């Protein structure tokens, strides 16, 4: 196990930020820490990195207890913060070089790694630019390059795509997958479920400082009753038809609002064909029809009773 967090408790006066948090990250994983804003994701990361004190619990990284002066552990960790953490007075190249030189002593090696990091984030054309001349997306890429230049075994990314344009976001996500493919273990925190779903091999959903579920996305989705969500555009649907639809086997929720019919069915039941058949027999005219498999938001909703983005 690469990272083992057990019973972590962190209080800010009366507020419990982490409530006996447990996390286990295996080598080679992209581990997603998903939760709404204020759920304790960043606090957990700060505790894991020994940047802040915690009240209870233990943290082990690479099988050793993590402490503020555990330099041998820190040497193999890369950190990409939520906000851009670079020097305004240094160019892109110099920033990456500086942060890389905090980890690597050999100057030639640092130069080589700096070049590689610039290539990795596709910023060759911006190497001599100062950060204030870069767009938000490029700044994020520079931020990532500063965190990964020294080729760490464990990379922690704390919401790296906040306020990033879609193009840069895709580049960042592709980069994370590439880093993982090259052998790095990733801890990725976000409140964007699509991102976590897209790249993470294992996910922990966190709320109020506590892990509420943990597993692969398939495992998480298997934990809830929802199997399929069918949405139809309808101009009119009498109450009688709604009640008849509710009688279908496997269907447990039928709602009609603003010309949209939303039918939720239990997993393992393909109800679409039966519903279409029912509509045809009853001469109910419908427009677009789409079906969705459950998302992590549905998982969060079913477990906590609230939306992930609340």
């Amino acid at each position: 196990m690469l990272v083992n967090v057990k019973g972590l408790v962190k209080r800010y006066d009366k507020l419990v930020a982490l409530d006996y948090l447990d996390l286990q990250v295996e080598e080679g994983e992209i581990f997603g820490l998903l939760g709404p804003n204020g759920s304790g994701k960043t606090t957990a990361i700060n505790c894991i990195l020994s940047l802040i004190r915690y009240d209870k619990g233990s943290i082990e990284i690479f099988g050793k207890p993590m402490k503020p002066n555990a330099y041998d552990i820190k040497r193999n960790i890369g950190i990409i913060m939520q906000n851009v953490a670079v020097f305004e007075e240094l160019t892109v190249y110099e920033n990456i070089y500086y942060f890389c030189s905090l980890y690597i002593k050999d100057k030639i090696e640092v130069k080589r790694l700096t070049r590689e990091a610039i290539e990795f984030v596709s910023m060759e054309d911006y190497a001599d630019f100062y950060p204030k001349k870069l767009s938000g997306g490029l700044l994020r890429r520079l931020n990532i390059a500063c965190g990964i230049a020294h080729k760490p075994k464990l990379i922690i990314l704390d919401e790296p795509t906040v306020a990033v344009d879609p193009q840069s976001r895709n580049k960042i996500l592709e980069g994370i997958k590439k880093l993982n493919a090259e052998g790095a273990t990733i801890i990725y925190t976000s409140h964007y479920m699509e991102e976590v779903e897209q790249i993470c091999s294992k996910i922990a959903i966190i709320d109020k400082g506590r892990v509420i579920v943990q597993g692969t996305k398939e495992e998480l989705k298997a934990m809830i009753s929802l199997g399929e969500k069918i949405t139809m555009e309808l101009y009119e649907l009498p109450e009688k038809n709604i009640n008849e639809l509710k009688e279908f086997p496997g269907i447990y929720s039928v709602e009609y609002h603003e010309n949209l019919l939303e039918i939720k069915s239990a997993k393992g039941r393909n109800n679409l064909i039966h519903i279409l058949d029912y509509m045809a027999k009853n001469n109910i005219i419908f427009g677009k029809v789409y079906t969705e498999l459950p998302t992590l938001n549905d998982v969060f909703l079913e477990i906590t009773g609230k939306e992930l983005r609340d």
Partner: protein
Amino acid sequence: MSLGLYFMRVKCLLRNMEGIFWCYIFPIILSTCLYLGVSKLGAVEEFETIKIAYVVGEAQTELSKEAGTAVSQEQAELSHEVGTAVGHNELLSVMKAAKLSEDKYMFDITLCSSKEAVDLLEKGDIEAYIIGGDRPELFIKENGLNETIVKSFVDSYMQKQITIKNILVSNPEALNNGLIDDLIGQTDFVDISDKHKKPDNIIIYFYAILAYTCIFASNWGLEEVINIEADQSMRGARISASPVSKMRLFACNMLASYTCHIISVILLFLYMKFVLNVKFGDELAYLIAICLAGSLTGLLMGASIGFWIKKKPAIKEAIIIAFSLGCSFLSGMMAVEIKYYVTEKFPLLAYINPVNLITDAMYSLYYFDGHNRYFINLMLLMLMAAVFTVASYFGIRRRNHDSI
């Protein structure tokens, strides 16, 4: 590695335009403004040769009437006071011989008729004219410094002439006893202070600017703490998560800051000395030494505030600016009387004010022969630096924070 970190930090500091402005440019602007604004106050007014006219051998009454039509009645009355007492044209030869310095005469005398004299006075070509004769008369157009000098000269001449005449009549023997020499001779009493320097309040303002610049290093000290502390900046968080010893990184960064800052102080000093021609005296090595100590104290003070005051960086910056300006104010940067007042009424405050210690050390170098006072100030400053070093050491030893 440490050398690399040091040079990278130097690069950062020298590219930080805001820091460069406040530390390199602003003190130069301030000292230039001071130079342009107040340095003239200390300058000695240089006397110029006074242009006058002298009318020789004309009937006095008639001339007086003519002159009276040209100048105001009031001024004519004023000059009449002198005129009634003045005797022969010997006055002319005395005035011709009078000198301001070895190569500069006191009066530039034009001999002319009374009519020409009136014209010259009206045009402003001369400051006054004198009508010679048994009862010389002085005519002026305005009351001013030069007019006063002419009148004083004529008064003094006439008074001595009358005195000598009286002595000759009543006691001619007195002439053999050197009485004439006593009457003619003049003794000046000039106060020579220590080290042959005149008291110069203006230079204290320049000292205060130098001292302020030294203490401004506190901003740079604070910046170094902000850059490495996880609870102060994201850069600090990233650096804290790296495997480099914070103590070593802090030492490298502080050394870089000190280097850049002391360069700014030396540049300011050179600018004051060679461009503004501020007379700092002969003991420049001592002066630079106190600047080095002041800059170090400022840097460490800023770092201590950064470590120990639990506020946001912006609040800490405000505290440091207010503190630096407050110390500078109390050490006479705005009004030198405040420095004297604080030293006299609140000596303890003067001893714990680093800006005051710096200015006082510079002041003592300029005015006093010995170095006792200078070394007391230097030692107090170094003591402060030592206290701030200990505070910074314990500040950086804290491994992590309650929150970031």
